[in-house]
């Protein structure tokens, strides 16, 4: 493996304690951990976009937060530039947080409504004490805003968030994360609150920054077609585990795992091709994540399920170059 791996996640686990009743709490009876992330591994290279796709509750956001140590991982390791993250070392973490940034879903909630754009974008500089003079601060904000497509930047300096449209707000959020010149960005559903016509502008911006600065992205989304459009590789998550990971086209057009196939089959496409076709919906519902599942997590909804799936958890195995599937029958499918 080359040196260009920015982030590597090995067997990452995040389990949350769930509160039952006071009685069970007191006697430690039957404590069920909620396994939000249950053994996730992947690498992201320089200039690469990896999409993490899954339904709500599959653990994709928790994975993102655990990488940045915003929630404490229960187990596993995270490497940044080949070095394991030292979450106890405050000085190290300060530097790490500058180089690894997160963009959240809702631009209406992730900016302070009582700050003007200039202060919102400059806040990371102020917090880290990186600029000495007013001119330097303004200069860096200007560059960041212009990179985020807010031109002319000066015109937006003294505007409040409510004076901006949804797309502009998300650009401000991007500008404030870009001002630290990070190597790695976790984008958690960055466009799902935006209208379709504005969405593409933000996507273009993210792609453009990737091309110019060779950023690595972890793109978290529930929208498979969006993931296909922008990412190099896609990882499909279900109940805290990666079911399949590989090149975007490979996953969409030649997916192997029964869950991936179910998802791609019902994926809505604009047009009349699927007109009147009955959607093949998976039977049942996603099990509660506190339920203990010894075998394959997808067992209860899988048409291929056998005895072995019930008892044994399948590991990811390589079905074609760089295409891994966690299924006992991966090679037959």
């Amino acid at each position, binding site marked *: 493996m080359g040196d260009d791996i920015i982030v590597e996640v090995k067997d990452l686990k995040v389990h949350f304690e769930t509160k039952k009743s006071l009685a069970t709490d007191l006697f430690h009876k039957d404590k069920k951990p909620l396994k939000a992330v249950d053994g996730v591994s992947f690498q992201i290279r320089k200039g690469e976009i990896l999409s993490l796709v899954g*339904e*709500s509750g599959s653990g994709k956001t928790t994975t993102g937060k655990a990488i940045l140590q915003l929630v404490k991982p229960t187990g596993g390791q995270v490497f940044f530039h080949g070095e394991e993250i030292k979450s106890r070392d405050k000085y190290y973490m300060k530097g790490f947080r500058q180089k690894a940034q997160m963009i959240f879903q809702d631009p209406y909630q992730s900016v302070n409504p009582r700050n003007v754009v200039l202060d919102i974008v400059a806040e990371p500089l102020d917090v880290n004490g990186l600029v000495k003079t007013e001119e330097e601060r303004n200069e860096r904000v200007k560059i960041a805003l212009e990179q985020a497509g807010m031109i002319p930047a000066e015109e937006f300096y003294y505007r409040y968030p409510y004076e901006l*449209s949804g*797309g502009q707000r998300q650009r401000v959020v991007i500008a404030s994360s870009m001002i630290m010149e990070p190597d790695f960005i976790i984008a958690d559903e960055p466009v799902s609150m935006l*209208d*379709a*016509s*504005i*969405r*593409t*502008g933000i*996507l*273009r911006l993210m*792609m453009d920054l990737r091309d110019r600065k060779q950023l690595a992205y972890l793109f978290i989304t*529930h929208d*498979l*077609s*969006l993931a*296909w*459009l*922008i990412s190099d590789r896609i990882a499909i998550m279900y109940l805290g585990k990666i079911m399949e990971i590989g090149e975007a*086209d490979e996953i*969409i*057009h030649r997916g192997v795992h029964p869950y991936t196939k*179910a*998802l*791609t089959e*019902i*994926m*809505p*496409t*604009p*047009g*009349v*091709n*699927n*007109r*009147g*076709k*009955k*959607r093949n*919906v*998976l039977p049942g*519902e*996603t099990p509660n994540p506190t339920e203990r599942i010894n075998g394959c997590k997808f067992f209860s909804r899988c048409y291929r399920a056998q005895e072995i799936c019930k008892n044994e958890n399948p590991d990811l195995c390589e079905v074609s170059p760089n295409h891994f599937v966690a299924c006992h029958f991966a090679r037959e499918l």
Partner: protein
Amino acid sequence: MALLEVKHLKTYFDTLKGQYKAVDDVNFDLEYGEALGLVGESGCGKTTCALSIARLLPKEGKIYGGKILLEGTDMVQLSDDQIREKRWKDVSIVFQGAMNALNPVMKVGDQIAEAIMLHEKIKKEDALRRTERLFELVEMPADRIRNYPHEFSGGMKQRAMIAMALACNPKIIIGDEPTTALDVMVQAQILNLLEKLRRELNMGLILITHDLSILGETCDKIAVMYAGKIVEIGMVEDIFERTAHPYTKRLISCFPNISKDKVIPAGIEGIPQNMLEPQPGCSFYPRCHLATDLCKTEVPTSIEVGKKHFSACHRASEVLNGR
């Protein structure tokens, strides 16, 4: 006679800053068993349209003109008492946040039975029995009517809401972003269900959404709204394959299509116009790549470009021919 005819509907909001023309001269009709998709971006007036049909507008909103003919009866002219009779029996709405619309401290079955008893003079046992049948109709086990909302998943709550909407055999069901907050798999289940119901019960369905990609497989007709107006309306095939309005064309291209090339779409530059200060001319003019001087000054009227296919654009025929 069509099930529903909306003619020159004008719904305006009176605000402190002036009059906001949320729905401005909208026309469409709906047959029995037909599904119409109403698509547009946030603020284009699609929800206001639905609320006008059910006469559920907030107090600032008023219908200033037009007709809403439901089997020939003009909903606009009815008094509040008369409309209360019609609502739920003739028209019912399933909202986007339906999951939060259930009363958390009341059993789901009791909530649905309550709605039935308000509209029909029947005993509670009978209402509950009907609720059980409704649950079967939406493919849920009948004994779940005795559960509380927190015992349901998001998809099940939405099903319960659909069951409730069906309680009095409405002629029209309006789904206002009924699947937006749901996962793709659950979304597919709900869409399958709505499709089955409208076929079996011969209901009219109006599906309101910002997601154009789900309409192609669900609806018969699509109406595209922009800034309070329907800019294009036609059969699904017309909208997708014989597009006759530049906005529709750009909007379709904004949705990724896995069977086509992988290019990031151009999007649409600019933002919709401020409807408190409407400009003369076509409302899409500032964002349109085909705009001419005529578009700047004159509002385009809706012209028929094909059979039952209308476009409100001065250059509709050019767009139709591939520009």
